[in-house]
Structure formats: structure tokens, C-alpha cells
């Protein structure tokens, strides 16, 4: 057991360790990025999906905005209450409450058989929308069903089911990426606990809609007339529901001649699609 080998190796590695430790320490000072010490735990608390639901470029951008005070605590739709509590505790501020939002597709795909022309090209909505009339279908407001939103959804909550986009309400975290992505703007954010849904975004008059879609809204106003809490308003041939007023009584579901309005698994009402990026 000659000790020179041990001595040499320990000395060599020790010297190297010392030297590199010094270099790293000095370098970490020279390259010190002056960050607020709360930034690290805050970014840790956020889910880290960088989805942009809070309206910022990513979790670290949102975290630094919160520290700079320009962003509210509860703006992270993905994290929900758990993240807000953690963020509030790090920032030493009480947490603002948040209502959970999910995406909803305002189209039943009723018009996908009635086409102006046969579209053969890149299987992508953004490509199809650039052609004359903005859509191969007769109905110029409907969902093209080519899955751009599916590509943008990081949480695998969107899928194309027989030609039209469908949202998986449980998986949807409400980040709003699909709302921005859809070139036909048929996807909007609604409250998770909305009672009914009117899945249509066609602003065309009745006789055009009857030709271009099997169950599109023709703006007949029946649902608005029979809704006691006056939750439904019809503007340019399209019915929209205000979630806060709707009590989920379901009379409009029975009244709608096109069988368009339906209960969202029996408990929820529909609210007008808001602008992208849900604010708390």
C-alpha cells in the first residue's frame, strides 16, 4: 500500500477543487445577475408550463412581474388556488380569489358537410383560412376542424372529434392558448361552472344559416323571450348567455327550435366569450 499514490491523487484533486471552487465563486460574483431573492421560490411555486395563460411570456416573466408589482397574484389559471396560496405566502400578501375558466368551442360542426369547394392542402386551419371566402365551408363562421388548436394546446385537452374541435373540460387549465390560436375565433373562455352552452358563432341571418348548417343559431329570439332571469341576449342573429345571471333552469334548452342550446353536463350556464387571457 504505497502512500505516494494516495498523496498525489488527493493533492492533485484537492488543488484542482480549490482552484475551480475559487474560479466559480469569483465568476458567480462577477456574473451576478441581480435578482430579487423571492424570484427563485416564486418561479418554483409556479407550475412552470410557460403556457402564457397569465398574459406573460412564461412563468419566470410572470414571477418577475409579480415581484415588480405590475402583476396580480392570482393570474395563473393553470395553478389555481394552490399556486395562489403559495405565491401569496411568498410575497406576504393575501391571495386574490380566482374563478376557474375553461375553453369552449362555439361550433357544433353541423355545417362541415356543406362545402363551397373541396379543400386539398396543408391540413391546418391557419393555411385553410387564407383561401377565398376564408373557409371551404358554406358557413363562414364555423370551425374548420383541422386541428391548429390541438397543436397549440400543451395540456392535450383539445381533440378533433368527427370534424370539429372538442374541449376536454377536466384537462383544460384555461391558459387561453387555443383562443389565440384559432384563426376562426370560434373558441372562447367560459366559467367552469356555467350551466348551459350555445355552441354557435354564426352572425349570418336565419335563411343563410338554415342553408349552411344543420343546427346553427338563426337568431329567432325564442330563448331570450322565455328566459326569466333575462340571461340570454341575441345580437346580430346570435344568442349569447351571461353566466352570472343564468340559473340553469333549462327552459331555453326546450324552447330552441334548432336544438342548439344544451346543458353542460346538467349543471352549468354559458357566458359570452371574453377576450384572450382571462383576468381574475
Amino acid at each position, binding site marked *: 500500500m504505497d502512500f505516494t*499514490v494516495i498523496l*498525489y491523487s488527493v493533492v*492533485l484533486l484537492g488543488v484542482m477543487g480549490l482552484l*475551480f471552487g475559487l474560479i*466559480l465563486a469569483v*465568476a458567480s460574483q462577477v*456574473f451576478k*445577475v441581480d435578482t430579487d431573492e423571492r424570484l427563485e421560490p416564486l418561479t418554483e411555486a409556479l407550475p412552470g408550463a410557460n403556457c402564457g395563460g397569465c398574459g406573460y411570456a412564461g412563468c419566470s416573466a410572470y414571477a418577475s412581474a409579480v415581484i415588480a408589482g405590475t402583476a396580480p397574484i392570482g393570474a395563473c389559471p393553470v395553478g389555481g388556488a394552490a399556486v395562489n396560496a403559495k405565491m401569496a405566502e411568498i410575497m406576504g400578501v393575501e391571495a386574490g380569489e380566482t374563478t376557474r375558466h375553461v375553453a369552449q368551442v362555439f361550433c357544433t360542426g353541423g355545417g362541415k358537410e356543406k362545402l363551397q369547394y373541396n379543400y386539398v392542402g396543408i391540413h*391546418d386551419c391557419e393555411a385553410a383560412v387564407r383561401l377565398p371566402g376564408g373557409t371551404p365551408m358554406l358557413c363562414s363562421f364555423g370551425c374548420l376542424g383541422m386541428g391548429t388548436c390541438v397543436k397549440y394546446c400543451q395540456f392535450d385537452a383539445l381533440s378533433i372529434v368527427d370534424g370539429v374541435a372538442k374541449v376536454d373540460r377536466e384537462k383544460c387549465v384555461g391558459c387561453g392558448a387555443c383562443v389565440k390560436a384559432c384563426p376562426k375565433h370560434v373558441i372562447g373562455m367560459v366559467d367552469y361552472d356555467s350551466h348551459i352552452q350555445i355552441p354557435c358563432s354564426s352572425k349570418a341571418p336565419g335563411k343563410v344559416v338554415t342553408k349552411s348548417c344543420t343546427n346553427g343559431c338563426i337568431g329567432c329570439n325564442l330563448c331570450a323571450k322565455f328566459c326569466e332571469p333575462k340571461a340570454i341576449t341575441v345580437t346580430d342573429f346570435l344568442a349569447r348567455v351571461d353566466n352570472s345571471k343564468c340559473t340553469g333552469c333549462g327552459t331555453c334548452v326546450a324552447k330552441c327550435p334548432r336544438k342548439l342550446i344544451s346543458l353542460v353536463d346538467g349543471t352549468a350556464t354559458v357566458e359570452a366569450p371574453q377576450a384572450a387571457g382571462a383576468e381574475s
Partner: protein
Amino acid sequence: MEQIFAIALSAILVENYVLVQFLGICPFLGVSKKVDTALGMGLAVIFVMALASAATYVVQQLLIMLDITYMQTIAFILVIATLVQLVEMFLQKAVPSLYTALGVYLPLITTNCAVLGAAVLNTQEGYNFIESVAYGTFSGVGFTLAIVLFATVRERQEFCKCPKAFEGIPMALVSASLLALCFMGFSGLSVW
């Protein structure tokens, strides 16, 4: 001088680090979604590999002098890890956008088989100082060539319609295998 050219040719084409020697595949698959991040990663790897080859050559001479060459792996790894940490700090300060884009793959350069592979191959081939630095740099260039080529292919893949199961990584791997096939064509090209 022609020895350097021979090394360059072999390191970039004939024995390309990623596609022929299977070194450095993790960042190759992980960072090649966009060409600019791939290029950023490639340049960082070239920088680290050049410095690492130089530093490890000096360390190897030290090890031989003290006759403790069994410490080779540890000493090399320590040098490379420190170098990568320095690059990480520098990027965080100077180019934060590239730093966030590279994300977890920057520390992974440390375990990047390519960097340690270059250091170990340098000692095996018995190159002198200039040759080993040249070998390190040119294998970094080979790595960058492979990763940038691959990134351009992957960017175009976003719009092609491929079977659901093959979307994402499997499709990338299939195109990587075709790329490897092309690079196999160079194997007959031995210069010296």
C-alpha cells in the same frame, strides 16, 4: 498542417460525433426544435469542447507525470463541469434569452458524452496539444452541423401530416436515422 485537416475532416464528416459515434444524443434530440436554439447550443458546445480539450490535455500530462492515470475520468469531469458552469453563468448574464431557451440542456452539456468523449479520445489517440484542441473544436463543429441540419428538418416536420403515434419524437428519430444513413456514406472517405 495536413494532419490538422485530416483530423478536421474525420471529426466533422467521417466520424461525426452524433450520427456515427452516438455521442451527445440527449441535447441533439432535446434542443433541436428550433434552428436558432440549436445553433446557440452548437456554439456553446464548440466553445466548451475546445476549452475542455485544451484543459484536459494539460491535466492528462499532470496525471501521467504523477502516474495516477486512473484518476483520468474524475479529473476530466471536474474540468468539464467547471467549464460548463462558467458558460452557464456567462450566458445567464450576457444572453438571457439563449439561457432560457437552452433550459435544462445547458447543464446537461456536462454529462454530454461528446465533451468527455472528445477528452478521452484525445488521450487515446495520443494527440499533442494543438491536435487535441483541433480535434475538440472540429468535433464540436461536427456536432453543430448535425444538430443544425436536424433542426431544419424538424422545423419542416411541424406541418407534415404523420400518423398520430409517430408525432413528435418518433418522427424526429426516424429522420435522424435517415440523416445517420447519409453520414454513413462518408465512412469510406479515410484520408490518412
